[in-house]
């Protein structure tokens, strides 16, 4: 009992035993709480050392002296407290172990009343720590522990995906091991899928995400006639990381095209079933693509569909038939979910008078779906003009501008800094989406939520166009938790031969941040146009539920 880490466990146990002896039934919540605390203790023992080293490395140190001293000697009830508030619980348990230290020594001599008092003090300390944890706001990003939220009547321990735990060295080690394990058995260890290393200084709010450099492609570490990974997948990965294939729809189509090549060149090894072996073959390819550029929600859904189709192949099916069936499935998926969905959305938008004569439509960036809708509307002789809003560093609006002007639509081009100037002229805003989340939030190119916000302020209707295959059942309320960090060197600009930001890595207090996505809350979005019709943002979970039932 001198071990400070196990204070709570035995304390709780005592209480529960007491409760049992007093005839009370252990409620379900208490059982879960018990399990959770046991896990916490185990983790606290492990993470204490990690935390000590992490704290030395991290820059943001509001904790400074209190935290390093406290956890070393105190029982960290919630071990991830690396901020000032941790000083609060640190002080509270100070009194507890003092009494605790004396407690075990004299345990046989203590009366029941004294034990009760000790337990009550402990409970209060815990309550205090929970209160202070609730007081933490917006610092969620750096916590890397999969702990239940303070309101822990639902203590379901959710595991965070590894791609947002980049600052946790254990997770990185696990990822490296997973990549090793994923190579097929006939290749020796030297030919595994390499781990792409992060580049440059990461802004601390986003240090849990990967940040890669375009100048260090993953192919540097692969052998040139790639035998481990199918050449079509290597080509695709390169195209993703160079940005040659960009945009949710384009990436999904290119992915399915590459999978078609893989399936064509696939032969079932002896004593294996196609339905199981092909799925295993696809796993290392998917990790490779994930390292080249994090997978998008639409790609994730497409992969889920393919994996399902492959596993549903009956075992008595011949290889040729199975392959041709899979190829047809892929074709029909693309046809239904992307091409026809686009046509349906355009038809819906045009016929239901969402684009009427005399409209001034604002679009942001280059969304293939929104461009398609506008071109269709123009062909059906609607009279409207378009304002294209663009932002650095991608400047995708220039490509949208080119496509619209080529059709003959009259366009205006502004940068996002001028959006509040131009909005009084606008009658509608059309936005594309990268994904629609289950709580109604729209995940799209960074800057979209700004546009939606300003449009709301000017009372301009905002319409989001999105196919249903981009709906995903993730929930996110801010843009920090899960995002993508692009190459920071893209922000550097050379004008007239001088590059002011050239030596940005040498400045210790300068960090370059190149975010790719942001989330827009459903309050700013008036309508979502999908191929199923026009639905409000909050109906996304209904669509997902219906889709799952269908399948």
């Amino acid at each position, binding site marked *: 009992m001198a071990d400070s880490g196990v204070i709570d466990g035995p304390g709780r146990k005592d209480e529960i035993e007491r409760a049992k002896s007093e005839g009370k039934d252990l409620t379900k919540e208490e059982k879960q709480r018990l399990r959770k605390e046991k896990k916490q203790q185990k983790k606290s023992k492990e993470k204490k050392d990690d935390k000590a080293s992490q704290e030395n490395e991290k820059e943001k140190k509001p904790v400074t002296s209190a935290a390093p001293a406290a956890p070393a000697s105190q029982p960290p009830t919630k071990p991830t407290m690396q901020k000032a508030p941790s000083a609060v619980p640190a002080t509270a348990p100070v009194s507890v172990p003092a009494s605790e230290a004396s407690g075990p020594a004299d345990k046989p001599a203590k009366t029941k009343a004294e034990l009760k008092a000790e337990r009550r003090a402990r409970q209060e300390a815990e309550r205090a720590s929970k209160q202070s944890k609730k007081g933490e706001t917006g610092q969620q990003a750096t916590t890397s522990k999969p702990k239940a939220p303070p309101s822990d009547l639902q203590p379901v321990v959710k595991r965070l995906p590894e791609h947002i735990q980049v600052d946790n060295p254990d997770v990185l080690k696990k990822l490296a091991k997973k990549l090793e394990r994923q190579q097929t058995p006939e290749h020796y260890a030297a030919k595994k899928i390499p781990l792409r290393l992060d580049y440059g200084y990461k802004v601390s709010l986003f240090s849990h995400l990967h940040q890669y450099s375009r100048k260090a*492609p993953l*192919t*540097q570490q*692969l*052998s*040139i*006639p*790639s*035998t481990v990974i199918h*050449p079509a997948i*290597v*080509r695709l990965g*390169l*195209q993703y990381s*160079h*940005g*040659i*294939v*960009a*945009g949710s*729809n*384009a*990436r999904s*189509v*290119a992915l*399915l*095209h590459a999978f*078609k*090549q893989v399936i*064509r060149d696939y032969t079932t090894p002896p004593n294996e079933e196609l339905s199981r072996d092909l799925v295993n073959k696809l796993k290392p390819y998917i990790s490779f693509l994930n390292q080249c550029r994090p997978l998008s929600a639409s790609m994730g859904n497409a992969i889920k569909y393919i994996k399902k189709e492959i596993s549903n192949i009956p075992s008595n099916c011949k290889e040729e038939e199975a392959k041709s069936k899979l190829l047809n499935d892929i074709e029909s998926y*693309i046809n239904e979910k992307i*091409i026809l969905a686009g046509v349906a959305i355009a038809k819906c938008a045009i016929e239901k008078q969402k684009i009427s004569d005399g409209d001034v439509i604002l679009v942001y*960036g*280059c969304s*293939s779906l929104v461009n398609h809708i506008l071109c269709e509307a123009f062909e059906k002789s609607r009279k409207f003009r378009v304002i294209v809003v663009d932002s650095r560093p991608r400047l*995708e609006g*220039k*490509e*949208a501008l*080119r496509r619209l*002007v*080529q059709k003959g639509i009259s366009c205006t081009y502004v940068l996002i800094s001028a959006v509040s100037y131009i909005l009084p002229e606008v009658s509608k805003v059309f936005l594309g989406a990268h994904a629609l989340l289950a709580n109604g939030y729209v995940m799209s190119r960074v800057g979209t939520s700004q546009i939606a916000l300003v449009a709301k302020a000017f009372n301009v209707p905002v319409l989001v166009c999105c196919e249903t295959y981009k709906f995903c059942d993730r929930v996110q309320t801010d843009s920090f938790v899960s995002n993508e960090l692009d190459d920071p060197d893209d922000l550097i600009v050379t004008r007239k031969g001088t590059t002011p930001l050239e030596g940005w890595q040498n400045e210790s207090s300068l960090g370059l941040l190149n975010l790719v996505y942001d989330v827009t809350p459903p309050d700013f979005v008036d309508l979502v146009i999908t191929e199923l019709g026009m639905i409000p943002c909050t109906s996304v979970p209904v669509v997902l539920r219906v889709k799952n039932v269908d399948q």
Partner: protein
Amino acid sequence: MELQAVLMAAGGGSRMTDLTYNTPKAMLPVGNKPLMWYPLNLLEKVGFEEVIVITTKEVQKMMSTDLKIKDVKMKLDVVSIQEDGDMGTADALRHIQPKIKTDILVLSCDLITDAALHEVVDLFRAHNATMAMLMSKAHEFTETVPGQKGKKKTAEQRDFVGVDQSGKRLLFMANEADLEDGLSIRKSIMRKHPRMLIKTGLVDAHLYCLKKAVVDFLTENKSISSIRGELVPYLVRKQFSKTVNSQKLKDDIDDQTQEKNDGPANHELLISSRDEPLLQLAQERSCWNDHRGDMSEAYHGGKLRCYVHIMDQGLCCRVNTLAAYIEVNRLAPKLFEEPSVHPSADISERCQMGSDSIIGALCHIADKTSIKRSTIGNNTTVKEKVKVTNSIIMHGVTIEEGCNIQGSVICSNAVIGRGADLKYCLVGNGQHIEPEAERTNEIIVGTDQLMEI
């Protein structure tokens, strides 16, 4: 399989006949390793497992006995062609066309480089290019070349290479010899790429990634015989030719079978791939363009694209002249972390050896010799009081006492008599230099060589 490597080792070394009249160019020793070992090593380091080597019977025989080549772990598929036949590199490709199943990476045996090959291959893959090649900034050769009368004349034919703003897309390629009336650039190129950088100080490394369709095209087009001289400029020109970019080509792909039946009349380079409509769809939906400012789509809708990767740092040398050979002997050993003295060499203690000298296997170096900045081949005997500076001594040479050899190249099995003083000379194969000879800036070869004019 993604890429097949093809090594062209049948070249005759026409620009350094003094060295190659007895030893074929592919087996010339550089840093005591045969010249063709260097590209093979490059391919092996990068991860190739098989190489098709096109060479002559003589080289094939020498390869089978050479230890270093036996060390190469890759599977070498040696194809021998006639030595006297006038086979160009493209003809050789046509010859091995049945073996080619995928895109190819063509190397020349005289390329010594430490370039990162993935840069070239990444351009080839990412942009779905028809051709990707490697070039390097040329460096001046500083060593004195034996047998050169007067200052080195820049009579070397320059290459004019035009690249676009990003420095990766190849727009124009011509040799000075073909530009009699001046350099003319077509308007279609200028319209699509208004900014073009023309570079002249580049060395072509003769490393090309070519699509399989190009090899098929070669089999039908028998008039092209050299990759460097004819095929590459043809492909670069064809990027902007109207027929390739026309919409008609898309329909042509559907009747591809019919066109093939037309026979040799079809000289067009058909670039197509499986699932072309899906690739088109992905490109349409993608918000990427390789250029800005005009109304055309990515790559201006062209299917044939040529890319170049220009190295500005690192070693990239083509050993096809005597000057290059000498230069490379200095630089090549620095690429590898090998001991400069072979363990089996017998060197006496009173020998003064500089740190950048290389001694081969089974050598005998006697007392009071001084060897500085030189390469000594295998089985060479160097007797007492010999001074060797800045020279290249090949295998099996005997150097008698008191010789002074400076800045020279001594070929295999030569014998240098006692007290000879050679400055900036080239001694051919098996030659004997009489004792007390004093030669400066001469090429000493046998009489049978002189007859070849």
